[in-house]
């Protein structure tokens, strides 16, 4: 097998509460990522013609018609309903009875056929949440492993924040503290020389910001989410809703830094980082304009108590695809 052929193998799959992102090599030269919103809405089968005419994303099986992705949310708004989400707080939603089937179809569509038998596919998993006592990812990992095995891949779960270290910290020999601010939760990983030293998550993310800001301003989470994704500037909020979003984002950042300090204190005797390392901020929630600046501003208030020497705080090159790229890197190494 030639080197060029081998460069094609391996896949990375970021399984997020808000988005699925798959990463693969394309013709050995480029890295291609594909993204789909992790939401769906079921409609009567007779609406299929309308969906085809309007070129709306859908899947059909077992006589059921499901609108997928961003269009699920806009279609749900039309009917004044909520789009359904297969995942909640970073793992498969226990209350969503169609979660497994829908996720299986999404994964199959994003990854396609394996390029060889048992092609390595690294998929993201969250660490257990330190602020949710019953947090357990065993079932979530098992379901995703089974889906990937059925599709002909060899599944390999990798911590979400560790994948960010792989994709963003090459110049520090894969040493860094990565925070992945997702929709359902925030994952944290401290790695040194590509080895994970500390992993945990907190059960707060973009959804927590949306709900809190919605409660504070008397509006809906969906509207706050639209405001956030529409381009709020956290350094210069323009109205009451944007101010609420800014305050809740600040609270999320403070909580995450505080959690690192508290959690590290429990394991400090076992971990020794000999030199300063960077903090990398990633995840869809960090896409808001001014997020990293806000993080830097809040971090300075905690720097004196922070257990690790930090060389710099920087954003991921592409917060939406950073996890998937890191997973692809690891998959190519393992394949």
């Amino acid at each position: 097998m030639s080197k060029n052929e081998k460069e094609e193998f391996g896949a990375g799959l970021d399984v997020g509460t808000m988005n699925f992102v798959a990463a693969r090599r394309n013709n050995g030269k480029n890295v291609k990522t594909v993204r789909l919103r992790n939401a769906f809405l079921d409609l009567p089968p007779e609406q299929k013609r309308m969906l085809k005419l309007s070129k709306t994303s859908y899947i059909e099986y077992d006589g059921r018609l499901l609108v997928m992705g961003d269009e699920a949310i806009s279609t749900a708004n039309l009917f004044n309903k909520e789009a359904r989400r297969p995942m909640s707080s970073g793992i498969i939603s226990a209350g969503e009875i169609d979660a497994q089937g829908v996720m299986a179809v999404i994964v199959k569509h994003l990854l396609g056929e394996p390029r060889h038998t048992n092609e390595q596919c690294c998929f993201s998993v969250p660490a257990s949440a330190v602020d949710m006592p019953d947090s357990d990812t065993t079932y979530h990992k098992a379901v995703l492993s089974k889906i990937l095995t059925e599709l002909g891949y060899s599944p390999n779960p990798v911590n979400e924040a560790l994948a960010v270290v792989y994709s963003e910290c090459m110049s520090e020999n894969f040493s860094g503290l990565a925070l992945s601010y997702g929709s359902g939760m925030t994952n944290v990983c401290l790695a040194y020389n590509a080895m994970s030293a500390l992993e945990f998550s907190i059960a707060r993310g973009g959804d927590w910001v949306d709900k809190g800001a919605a409660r504070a301003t008397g509006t809906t989470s969906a509207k706050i989410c639209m405001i956030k994704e529409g381009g709020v500037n956290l350094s210069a909020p323009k109205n009451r809703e944007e101010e609420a979003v800014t305050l809740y984002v600040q609270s999320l950042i403070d909580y995450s830094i505080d959690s690192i300090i508290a959690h590290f204190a429990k394991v400090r005797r076992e971990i020794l980082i000999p030199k300063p390392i960077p903090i990398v901020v990633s995840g869809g929630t960090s896409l808001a304009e001014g997020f990293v600046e806000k993080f830097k501003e809040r971090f300075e208030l905690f720097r004196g108590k922070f257990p690790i020497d930090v060389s710099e705080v920087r954003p991921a090159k592409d917060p939406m695809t950073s996890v998937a790229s890191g997973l692809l890197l690891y998959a190519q190494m393992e394949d």
Partner: protein
Amino acid sequence: MMMCRISNITPMNIVIEDLGIRLQPVGGKGSHALVRADMARRSIDLGRNTQWVKIEEFEIVSPNAPKAPHPVAAVVPAKPPVAADVPAKPPVAAEVPQLPQFSQPQSSELEELKKSLDGMVARQEELFKLLQLAVQRPMVSAHVPVAHFDAGNFSSDEVILPGKLVPESVEVSVKVREDEHSADGFDDALAALKKAKNR
């Protein structure tokens, strides 16, 4: 036993998650479901969807229930008529919390519901027989060993998942957001990661 019939009145599928039921659009075969009335009253999701469904409550009486005995007229002397000077005060009703009012279905609907209920009981008996057989022989199901990775909170318990998860014969028409970028830096990172891992 008090039962509840929940009927979808919209042209969309409705899921009542905490009762575990899916209602097909109005007019369809699966557009209604039967549940116990006490469960329906406790359901939060049903409360959120009341504007989309019709709820009817009725009582199912078992045909084998003992019938009430015929009242036997007591032999008592007739009371002399009481002077109606003061009208008797009406009894003070105890404070009873108002229960939600559901309309009573017609007799033909009741027959239909009884047939559905008999069908459900027959299916449950069938399932029970299958379970008994399953207990007597080893269960054949998909066994998925959970993959291990470097670090993190990870339980080594194995999870047995029945059946196939990836649906077959799926028609897919899904638009995804694609992005492509050069892999130059990627190849350097891959070489560096291999070197770091091999140390």
